[in-house]
């Protein structure tokens, strides 16, 4: 059997070399692959999931919590994304589903659905605002905030990990488009 690690290829790998090299202060980089699980369930189940995963999920809307390479993103009032950077999706999923056996909830492995981009630099928010209508000022979109939103014609998950660093998680088929969009935008701003 083919190992999933061999089958997995990042949709953004061809993009990096095609990017412009102009002197923009905003950098784009490909985020490492991660195990990604979408969880849906009520309070008791999310607490059990968080306890097993080692990260306490935010019950506040549009916030994420992270411990080391593991993070939990709030997606909706009963929906969270569990992410484990550089971990094997099969192992993470297996452990989680065993821990949630007694709970009424849903857990779906979406590790291969999306790829991640880090947008970093003093004008990162301005670059994203070329296609994203959200208010990305620190007051409206503080560090630790995450939300699904739009960028141009694509839907994506946007989070702010540092004052000048945003992470974009986008479905594979939209990833090259979003990369090119941001690459163009960063050279305009």
């Amino acid at each position, binding site marked *: 059997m083919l190992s999933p690690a061999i089958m997995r290829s990042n949709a953004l790998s061809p993009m990096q070399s095609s990017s412009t090299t102009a002197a923009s202060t905003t950098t784009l980089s490909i985020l490492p692959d991660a195990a990604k699980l979408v969880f849906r369930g009520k309070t008791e189940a999310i607490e059990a999931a968080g306890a097993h995963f080692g990260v306490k999920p935010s019950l506040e*809307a549009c916030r994420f919590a992270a411990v080391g390479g593991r993070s939990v993103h709030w997606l*909706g*009032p009963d929906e969270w994304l569990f992410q484990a950077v550089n971990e094997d999706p099969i192992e993470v999923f297996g452990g989680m589903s065993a821990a949630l056996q007694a709970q009424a909830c849903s857990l779906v492995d979406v590790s291969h659905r999306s790829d991640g981009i880090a947008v970093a630099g003093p004008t990162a928010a301005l670059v994203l605002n070329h296609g994203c209508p959200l208010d990305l000022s620190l007051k409206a979109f503080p560090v630790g905030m995450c939300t699904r939103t739009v960028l141009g014609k694509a839907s994506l998950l946007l989070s702010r990990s540092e004052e000048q660093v945003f992470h974009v998680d986008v479905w594979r088929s939209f990833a090259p488009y979003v990369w090119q969009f941001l690459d163009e935008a960063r050279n305009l701003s």
Partner: protein
Amino acid sequence: MLLINCPYCGSRPEAEFANGGQAHIARPADPMSLTDDEWAAYLYMRDNIKGLHHERWRHANGCGRFFNASRDTTTDVIKRTYRMGERPEAEHQGAKP
């Protein structure tokens, strides 16, 4: 761009939302007891209100949840948004019981 207040996420740009048509239309409890005309009315007939209209919206590119909004169809001003299962503050004219 209009700002719409998602009951879960707060004030967000219109581009993230999808309209879901008129709200508070309950599926008949016993469809088999309905005439074809009554069933067709349930399926297709909707109010066409000038003024305050209660409708469903979905925060499609956000939390993904459906909610209700009371929107004035003459000014496009959304007076209030509220969660599924809650009732509107003011029933619109011509609302069926």
